[in-house]
C-alpha cells in the first residue's frame, strides 16, 4: 500500500506537486493519470525517495522508501527517464542491482528471459532500442520479485506489440496479487488495464475513483438529431432541460437529455425526426476535457487580456465541453 499525504514539491516558483493526498490500495492496478507536466513523474520520484518533498510525506506500507529493508525485494520501479549506463551490458546492469539486494545471479537470467532479452544479455545497452530499454527497465523492476510495482509511463514509445506485452504483463502481475501503480497520459490505456484511477492536473488531485465510476461519470452523453423543424425541436428539448447546439451541417447536438426522452417529446409535439442517435464521447476526449479545464483554470489571464476593457469575455463552448468543463472546475466535487 502506498500512502501519499499532503505532498508538496516546489522547484523555485513552480509547484510541481501541490498538496497531493491519495492511497494506492494493495492487490489491484491503480492508474495515475494526468497530462504531461501534471506532476506524475515527480510524485513517483518522491514516493521512491529520489527527490525530497518540500513538505508532506509518502509511505510504503507505513515506511518511507529508504527504510525498507532490501527495497528492490519490496518495490519494483520503472522510471520514465533512462537509468542505465550505455557502456554496460544488460546482464551486468542487473547483476549489480541484484548484488545490492542479495538476489542470486540465477534470478538475473530469469528476469532477462522473462522480458525476452536473454539473447542480448551480453550486449552493451548502448545499441538497445527504446522498446528493449523499456524491457530492461521492467526486468530491473521484477528482479527482487516485489509485491508492489511503480511504473512510470511504461508504454511510452513502444510499438503496438510492446504495448500489448506490457498490458498483459501488468494483468498477469496483478492476477498474482501484486499491487501496481502505473502512470499514463493516455486515458484509453488506463481504461483497459486499471481498476482504479487517480487523476492529477498541475500537481493537484482532480479525481480518485473506481475506473467504472470514472468512465460513467466522465463519458459525456450527446444525442445527434436531424429534423426539418429545428426551432420546434429546440423548444421541446429545452423544456426537458437539455441544451441544443446546431452543427454546421444542420444536425443538432443535444446534451442533458437522453435519446428516448427526446424521441417521446418529438412524437408528442408532432416533430418529424430524420435521425436520432446517441453519441458516446470517447473516454480520451472526456479526459482531455477534464484536464484541459484544469489547465484553463490555472492559466494566467492572458487569454482575456486581449479583450478591450469593458467588453465581457465570450468563451466559446461546444456541445461536449460545456458541462464537463464546469464539472472539472468544481474541482474536489468530482471525487
Amino acid at each position, binding site marked *: 500500500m502506498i500512502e501519499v499525504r499532503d505532498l508538496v514539491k516546489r522547484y523555485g516558483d513552480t509547484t510541481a506537486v501541490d498538496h497531493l493526498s491519495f492511497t494506492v490500495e494493495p492487490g489491484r492496478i491503480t492508474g495515475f493519470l494526468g497530462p504531461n507536466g501534471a506532476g506524475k513523474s515527480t510524485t513517483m520520484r518522491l514516493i521512491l525517495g529520489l527527490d525530497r518533498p518540500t513538505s508532506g510525506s509518502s509511505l510504503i506500507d507505513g515506511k518511507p522508501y529508504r527504510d525498507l529493508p532490501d527495497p528492490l525485494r519490496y518495490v519494483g520501479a520503472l522510471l520514465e527517464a533512462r537509468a542505465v549506463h550505455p557502456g554496460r551490458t544488460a546482464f551486468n546492469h542487473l547483476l549489480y542491482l541484484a*548484488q545490492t539486494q542479495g*538476489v542470486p545471479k540465477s534470478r538475473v537470467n530469469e528476469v532477462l*528471459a522473462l522480458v525476452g532479452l536473454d539473447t542480448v544479455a551480453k550486449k552493451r545497452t548502448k545499441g538497445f532500442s527504446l522498446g528493449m530499454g523499456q524491457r530492461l527497465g521492467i526486468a530491473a523492476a521484477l528482479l527482487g520479485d516485489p509485491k508492489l510495482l511503480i511504473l512510470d509511463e511504461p508504454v511510452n514509445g513502444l510499438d503496438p506489440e510492446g504495448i500489448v506485452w506490457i498490458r498483459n504483463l501488468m494483468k498477469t502481475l496483478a492476477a498474482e496479487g501484486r499491487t501496481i501503480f502505473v502512470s499514463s497520459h493516455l486515458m484509453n490505456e488506463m481504461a483497459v488495464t486499471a481498476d482504479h484511477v487517480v487523476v492529477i492536473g498541475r500537481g493537484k488531485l482532480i479525481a480518485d475513483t473506481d475506473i467504472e465510476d470514472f468512465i460513467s461519470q466522465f463519458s459525456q452523453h450527446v444525442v445527434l438529431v436531424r429534423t426539418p423543424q429545428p426551432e420546434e425541436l429546440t423548444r421541446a428539448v429545452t423544456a426537458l432541460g437539455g441544451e441544443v447546439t446546431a452543427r454546421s451541417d444542420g444536425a443538432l447536438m443535444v446534451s442533458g437529455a437522453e435519446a428516448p426522452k427526446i424521441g417521446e417529446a418529438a412524437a408528442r409535439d408532432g416533430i418529424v425526426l430524420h435521425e436520432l442517435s446517441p453519441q458516446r464521447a470517447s473516454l480520451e476526449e472526456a479526459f482531455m476535457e477534464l484536464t484541459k479545464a484544469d489547465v484553463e483554470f490555472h492559466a494566467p489571464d492572458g487569454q482575456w487580456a486581449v479583450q478591450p476593457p469593458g467588453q465581457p469575455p465570450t468563451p466559446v463552448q461546444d456541445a461536449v465541453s460545456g458541462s464537463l468543463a464546469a464539472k472539472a472546475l468544481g474541482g474536489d466535487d468530482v471525487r
Partner: protein
Amino acid sequence: MSADTLTRATIGTGHAHFGRLLLAEWTKLRTVRSTVWSFVVLIVAVIGFTSLFTALTVGQWSTMQASDKAQIQLDPVPQILGSGLFLGQLAVCVLGVLIASSEYSTGMIRSTLLASPHRLRMFAAKAIVFTIPVFVIGEALSFASYEIGKAIFSGKVPTSLSDPHVTRAVIGSGLYLSVLGLFALAIGQIIRHTAGAITTVIALVLVLVPLAGLLPGNLGKHVSAYLPTNAGQQIIQIYPKNQILTAWQGFGVFAIWTAVLLAVAAFFLVERDA
C-alpha cells in the same frame, strides 16, 4: 511468460549490508571500459614517462653542467617519481571524476539509489571500492618506476631504497595517487557533469600551482605550499622543496582538502534530488 518464473523461492532472504554494496560497486567499476582504459593509461604514462625522462637525463649527462649533475645526484628520487606522476596522475583524476559523474550523465544514479537508498553507505562503498585498486596499482607502479629509474641512472646517479626517506617517498607516491583519486571522486560527485568536473580537477592539479607562483613573496610561497597537490607531493620529496611543510605535514594538508571535499560531496548527495 508464466507465473512460475516469478516464484519467491529463487530469491532467498536477507537484509542489505555493507558487503553487498561493496560487491555491487565492484561490479559497476569492472564492467565499464573507462575503468580498464584509465588504468592502462595510468600504467603506460607512469612507466613510459619515468623511462623517457630518466633516459633523456642520462643521454645528456656528458653535456650537463656540473651543478645540475650534483643536484640530481643529491636528490634523484623526486626526479624519478615525479616524471611519471606528473601526467600519470591525470588518468586517476579522470577515472575518479567519471565514477561519480557518469552515474548522473547516464541516469544510472536512479537505479543505484533505488537499490541503495541510504546514499552515504553507497558513497562510502563506492569510495572504498575505487581506492583499493588505485592504491594497489599505484604502489606497484611507484616501486616499478623507482626500480626502472634506478636502473637507467645506474653508474651515474646512485640511489637505494635503504637511503634515508627513500622508501617513504616511494610508498608515498602510491598514497598520493590514492588520495588524489578520492579528491577527484569528491569533485565529480559535487559537480555531477563529467566535462565540468574534469576541467575543475585539472585546473586544481595543474593550473593553480603555477598561478600561485605568481603571487608575490612570502604570501605566494605559503599559498603555493598549501595547495592540495603541491602539499600532497611533498611526500615524494627527500628534501622538502618548500620549507613550510614537511613531507607528512604536506600529505596531511592534502588529506584534509580531500576529506573536506568528500564531506561536501556527501552533504550534497544527501540533500539534493537525484
